[in-house]
């Protein structure tokens, strides 16, 4: 069974919600990313999203843009990221999803990319600029390699799209908390509870909320109405804050501990 599915099964049985941490692979370096994954697992992350840095991150706010550019400057490539994933797999079974824009996938070919990712130990793919409408080949490849294909719902998603997206999504459904790019915000709109309920009516797959979640209070509030919470930019900011310090992974882990223990 896919590690993401297994994780949600366990969490459900225990009556728990998922804490999902996003970090940009290669920021500030791939060695740091490897150490961070293991430290985050220790501090209560249930699933980790590894961002493949992209030259044109059009769905990201300034924090993740900056991390992506630094990671690319460091020479981070898909191949090196998958090598790192293999190294992690020797010591950890934490569910890992790749978050990437579509072009790096399309460029090598959907089937080829999924096969390589699965072989390295990747459990899911999250591609913000690939709606299910354009993902026929990728979905077939993911199905063939038991890799979760995680699609998005948004506050602007029309009623007619909810069911087909929920059906196409495997692993979990990524619910974007607000119309916008990644990054922290002053507040998360109140309508989110209603939107999540609408999604829950048509699917029993796990629905997790991401974009703009940055404090323990928000983690708690979002977890109350969903199956899990995704935090990205807030963690990247913490990495930036302690970048260059020897104990950076431990300090970031301590920050994540505070968030995950709010669940």
């Amino acid at each position, binding site marked *: 069974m896919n590690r993401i599915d297994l994780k949600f099964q366990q969490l459900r049985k225990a009556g728990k919600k998922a804490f999902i941490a996003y970090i940009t692979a290669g920021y500030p370096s791939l060695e740091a990313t490897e150490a961070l994954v293991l430290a985050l697992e220790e501090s209560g992350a249930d699933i980790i999203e590894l961002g493949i840095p992209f030259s*044109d991150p059009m769905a990201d706010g300034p924090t993740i*843009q900056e991390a992506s550019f630094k990671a690319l400057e460091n020479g981070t490539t898909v191949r090196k990221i998958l090598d790192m994933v293999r190294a992690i797999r020797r010591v950890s079974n934490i569910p890992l999803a790749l978050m990437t824009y579509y072009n790096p996938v399309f460029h090598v070919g959907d089937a080829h990319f999924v096969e390589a990712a699965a072989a390295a130990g990747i459990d899911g793919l999250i591609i913000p600029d690939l709606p299910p409408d354009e993902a026929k080949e990728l979905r077939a490849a993911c199905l063939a390699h038991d890799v979760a294909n995680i699609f998005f719902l948004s506050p602007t998603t029309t009623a007619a799209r909810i069911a087909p997206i929920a059906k196409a999504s495997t692993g979990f459904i990524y619910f974007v908390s607000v119309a916008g790019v990644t990054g922290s915000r002053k507040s998360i709109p109140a309508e989110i509870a209603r939107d999540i309920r609408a999604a829950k009516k048509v699917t029993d797959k796990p629905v997790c909320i991401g974009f703009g979640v940055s404090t323990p209070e928000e983690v708690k509030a979002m977890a109350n109405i969903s199956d899990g919470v995704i935090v990205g930019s807030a963690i990247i900011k913490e990495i930036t804050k302690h970048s260059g310090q020897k104990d950076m992974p431990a300090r970031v882990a301590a920050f994540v501990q505070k968030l995950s223990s709010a669940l």
Partner: protein
Amino acid sequence: MRKKRLSVKKNKFPDKTGHYGDLGGRFVPETLMAILIDLEQELKNALKDPAFKKEFRYYLKDFANRPTSLYYAERLSRELKTLKVYLKREDLLHTGAHKINNTLGQIILARRMKKTRIIAETGAGQHGVATATVCALFGLKCVVYMGAEDVKRQALNVVRMRLLGAEVVPVQSGTKTLKDAMNEAIRDWVTNVKDTYYLIGTVAGPHPYPMMVREFQKIIGQEARQQFLKKEKKLPDYVLACVGGGSNAMGIFYPFFYDASVSLIGVEAAGHGLDTGAHSAAICKGAAGVLHGCKSALLQNADGQVQNAHSIAAGLDYPGVGPEHYYYKKIGRADYVAITDKEAIGGLKLLSRTEGIIPALESSHALAYLPKLARQVKGKKTVIVCLSGRGDKDMGTIQEVLDHESH
């Protein structure tokens, strides 16, 4: 040039899902899908609505100054010997380039959709100016994203946009040119999608934009075809246009699509040279890829990262191209060639000297291909060049080039 038989039935592209063969489509965050579906429907309704057509025609004529003339460039033709050259004078339009055709169409649509805030990206500043202009015309709020690098090279257009009441936001990320301006415009759009209309300036982006911009620009080719038939009692042998995103080229190509005897040639920017890596020739040198919402030709590295483009013409300085052009290339309906910065300067000088018309650096790429074409053809051939814009905005760049040459 060799003609291939076409296997495309009339009006079959894009297909219902917005694809040109396997190109085009909608590669956007879910948050934008609803507005794109909505926009597609609104566009369909508008294109069928006599009131919309009437309003669009009115502003094209009385505000933008259509129809533009098809001008026989006699001295230029004499110099080229084997070519009889006509210029489609989009440079004579209000604001100085073809971009106004599209911004008028889209602003009328945006008003029908009750949008109150307009955003746009711009490279050369021509689309930004054309957008700021139509926003002033209708009293709408306007924000233009422009790469910080382009803000410098097209300073005059920045002044124009600000005079017209637009807020110009210099974009500091990435290469600080058109592609980064487009990234930033998309980020704004995805955040403010409720009240904001994204007015894209070329035949790229997610469906229905490539089709919509083509529909609003095809007036160029419709007029040119009629005007040419009237003057020459036949169709031209060649139609030439520069290709950045591809809107002026698609505008003039599309009405000739089924005229199999007419060769369509798109001219990309070869920058410092096609083998230097510093160019913008997505079709000539790129591979299939996905950027800014559509699948098309894209300059990218082995890891699928988008590569920096270069052209002396800010309006061509973009690593992608509209999907319909790549489609025309794949089905053999159009050919694509590339002209270097240096050759483009030659084209600009040639037209200035022979006809008393100073073209935009973008259009100069199409003009610079004329002497090459003249050497290839057998006998005497006719050609229409889309003179997409005038050169006023480029005088700063040209002055630098001239200063450099005289040292």
